[in-house]
């Protein structure tokens, strides 16, 4: 894909995936990679940032004799996701307006 994904869009995508259920780092990366081509290492920074801002929490669950770290979206994370969704709509509309020569919404 030609388009670059900024930090906030990446945040929004991660929050969106987590809003469908908690998951662990590897699985989350694979899910995100299905939609967008990002490097595997980018996601740790995203997760950490979201955690620091209390948009997500972590908990450990035993799996095959070891711990798996799960990431769970918080209520403020859900609020943030709603905010991102509405901002994305506005953004998408203005981009489409430009790309399609101003014929949309007129």
């Amino acid at each position, binding site marked *: 894909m030609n388009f670059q994904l900024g930090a906030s869009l990446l945040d929004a995508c991660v929050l969106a995936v987590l809003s469908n259920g908690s998951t662990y780092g590897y699985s989350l990366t694979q899910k995100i990679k299905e939609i967008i081509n990002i*490097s595997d290492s980018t996601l740790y920074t995203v997760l950490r940032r979201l955690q620091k801002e209390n948009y997500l929490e972590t908990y450990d669950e035993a799996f095959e004799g070891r711990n798996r770290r799960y990431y769970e979206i918080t209520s403020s994370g859900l609020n943030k996701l709603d905010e991102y969704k509405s901002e994305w709509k506005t953004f998408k509309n203005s981009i489409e307006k430009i790309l399609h020569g101003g014929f949309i919404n007129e």
Partner: protein
Amino acid sequence: MNKFDFLNKLNNKLSSILPEERKEIIDYYTEYFIEAGEHNEENVIKELGNPVVIANQYLSELAIKESKENPVSIRKGLSAFWIIILGIFALPIGVPLVASLAFALVISAASIVLSLYISSITIIIAGIFLVFISMFILPIGFPTGILTMGIGGVLVGLGILLIVPINVVAIKSFTWISNIFSKNKNGGYKIAKKTLKQKY
């Protein structure tokens, strides 16, 4: 490079950060390797890329966060930022405003100076005219003629004398106007320089 090399390199590159933060990162990537499965180890290393790059990415993120948590420096940075932005936005209004002000001042100063010159020249012309007229009065009445000629001479002298202070007024007013605007420029430049110095 296997996963232990990868994790070791990452660990070494992150030696400057808090041990618990480092452990979190190492734990994340350790788990990542386990989840991907041993058969995928090479692929994962390839996909993850250079551990040095990952460490630098993390360190730069940390640096950005730290600068955000330091409100004083950020506010200074912001004020400098806004001064520049406001300056750019003020240009279309500011430049014509200053230019029209300068224009108005120059025009009014020029008209005042010009009117002063015209009045002194008028006095001189009147003086010359009186001296000329006195030539015709002299044969009729000598004292009246001499008086007229004297008044004419006085007027010519007065007019010429007046040109000196008018010159001074002209030079003073124009240097004053140009000083105002060049001072303004210098002042603005100094302010911007000061703010930039504060920022860095």
